């Protein structure tokens, strides 16, 4: 049995579904007042296990004529791959930065990473664009629309200016 990427995906799916089924199986499926909290999760996770298992054993069931008509993606050259990797890295960075640095600094960091590092634009314009995005975000969304944005001293200073 050859382990193609497709098959590996279904295997991971099956493993994950089994893990969830194990979690769901620990819950009551029936209680004194009727169906318990575990009934529906057991049904859905068991369903996932069956479908993922079928797909793992018979991967040909995952193919359709629609998929066959799709052209494969062209390979990336070195520069394009670098851009792609930086974009992928920017997402976890975004999660960390927004938790610790507030919205304005996060904007500047994100724009620097994407615009300057990934897309190779001028760093000065990237900084200006980042500050602009951050300021509009904090004032426009944070102040006028009342969005609950992450805030540090810089963000609070900006908010004080418009209050």
């Amino acid at each position: 049995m050859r382990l193609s990427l497709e098959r590996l995906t279904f295997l991971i799916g099956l493993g994950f579904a089994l893990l969830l089924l194990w979690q769901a199986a620990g819950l009551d499926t029936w209680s004194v007042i009727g169906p318990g909290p575990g009934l529906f999760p057991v049904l859905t996770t068991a369903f996932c296990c069956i479908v993922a298992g079928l797909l793992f054993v018979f991967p040909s069931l995952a193919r359709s004529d629609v998929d066959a008509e799709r052209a494969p993606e062209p390979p990336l050259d070195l520069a394009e791959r670098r851009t792609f990797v930086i974009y992928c890295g920017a997402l976890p960075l975004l999660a960390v930065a927004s938790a610790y640095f507030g919205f304005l600094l996060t904007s500047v960091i994100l724009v620097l990473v994407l615009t300057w590092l990934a897309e190779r634009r001028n760093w000065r314009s990237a900084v200006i664009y980042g500050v602009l995005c951050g300021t509009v975000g904090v004032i426009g969304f944070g102040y006028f629309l009342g969005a609950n944005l992450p805030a540090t001293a810089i963000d609070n200073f900006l908010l004080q200016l418009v209050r």
Partner: protein
Amino acid sequence: MEHLLLGFSVVGTPANLFYCFVGTFLGTVVGILPGVGPLATIAILMPLTAKMDVTSALLMLCGIYYGVAYGGTATSVLLRIPGEASSVITCLDGYMMARNGRAGSALTIAAVGSFIAGTIGTVAISYLSPPLAKLVFAFGPAQYAALMLAALAAVTYFSGGALLKALLMVGLGLTIGCVGADPMTLTPRLTFGSLSLVGGIDLTPLAIGLFGFSEIIAMARQPVSKLRIIPPPRTFLGFLPNREETRRSVAPVARGTVLGFLVGVLPGGGAMLASFLSYAVERKVSRHREEFGKGAVEGLAGPETANNAGTAGALLPLLCMGLPANAISAVLLTAFMIHGVAPGPAMIERQPEVFWGLIASMYIGNVMLLLQNLPLIGLFVKILEVPRAYISPLIMLLCVIGVYSSGNDSDVAVAVFFGFLGYFLRKMDFDLGLLILAYVLGPILERSLRQALTISGGDLSIFVQDYLTVGLLVAAAIFLLLGLWPTRRLSLRDD
């Protein structure tokens, strides 16, 4: 009629007109922009509208929903890039018309056809909603659970691609919907002991991750290419179709409206299926078959009309039965619930101002879209000239704002996780729209199932005790069996 007048009086306030305008404007922009679709946009804006008046918020979010089809047309005609899935078919004849020097006519025929379809669709909703809503009163928990199962089976069938992959997405969506405290007993479920998961996984980070962040990663995977836009006419006269084009577009517009609405009402139908079917019908009945693919007016007018009628049609089951026909209307359903509005018969009875306000806003919104789209189309299309280097951080930051507005600080990490998962699932040709739809329908299905089993004392025969439940379950089985049929030609991903 008096109900509709009530609706117009609700929408007629300056604030509501403004929000209706903002919604339709955003819808057009989103339809044009690659990288952020209507689903992600509604998910981003949904928490921001929490403090707004209910009617204003829903008018704006619905405006985005039906405005998208207009925006997608412009890029299909002028660039051969479908801004939205429902405009894919327009790339064939719409773009060829533009290349033949008829860009203005193509845009006008598409916009006027869309306007007619949207308006007639709205009229149909106005008249069909009350009787359909009364029918829903006949549904008990068993019938409702069967209806949800039939809807999920239909959506799975229409999703295109392999049936088992579609079913896996439905199963995953239903399972994600179970994560967190059980709504009846508050017992934590599928949390692996994590306290941060007890509150469940919110729709906003899930949708933003799957449809916002994953799209950004997909954009980064594509090489940057210079766009070649066919310029729209500069004068009003340049937008006017000639007599021959007008004559040839009348019948396709009429057929597209009826077909699109009927398809839109079906669970899993929606705008994309409507446009594809309309194109097939037009090619079959046209006297100018040889022109199809080379700029046939019928090949533009029919699908463009059908996709707007489909968009309107999909709102009928949502508003009358609380049953979303596709992923976007599933997100809209959540938006309704956030604002304390439960779509369905109760909404028409208890909150007529919201229901009829929405209906009236669709009439007004369609006029706004027509007025925005024809004169400003050149300006809208310029958005596409903004380089990826500036667009992508902006979209990411908007996504972060949307996630933070939904309330939980750790949700950005959840959204990032689903962003990577979504990108991987897209690459493996899974339909993410099904996941969202199942996630939204899951709690409703579970509640109905548990209520039915509580009533029957655990006796499963409650699901075969009346013709309606049996009929719906048989329909679900038929859809699943049809899904195993090997030759399904269309990819119908309406996300």
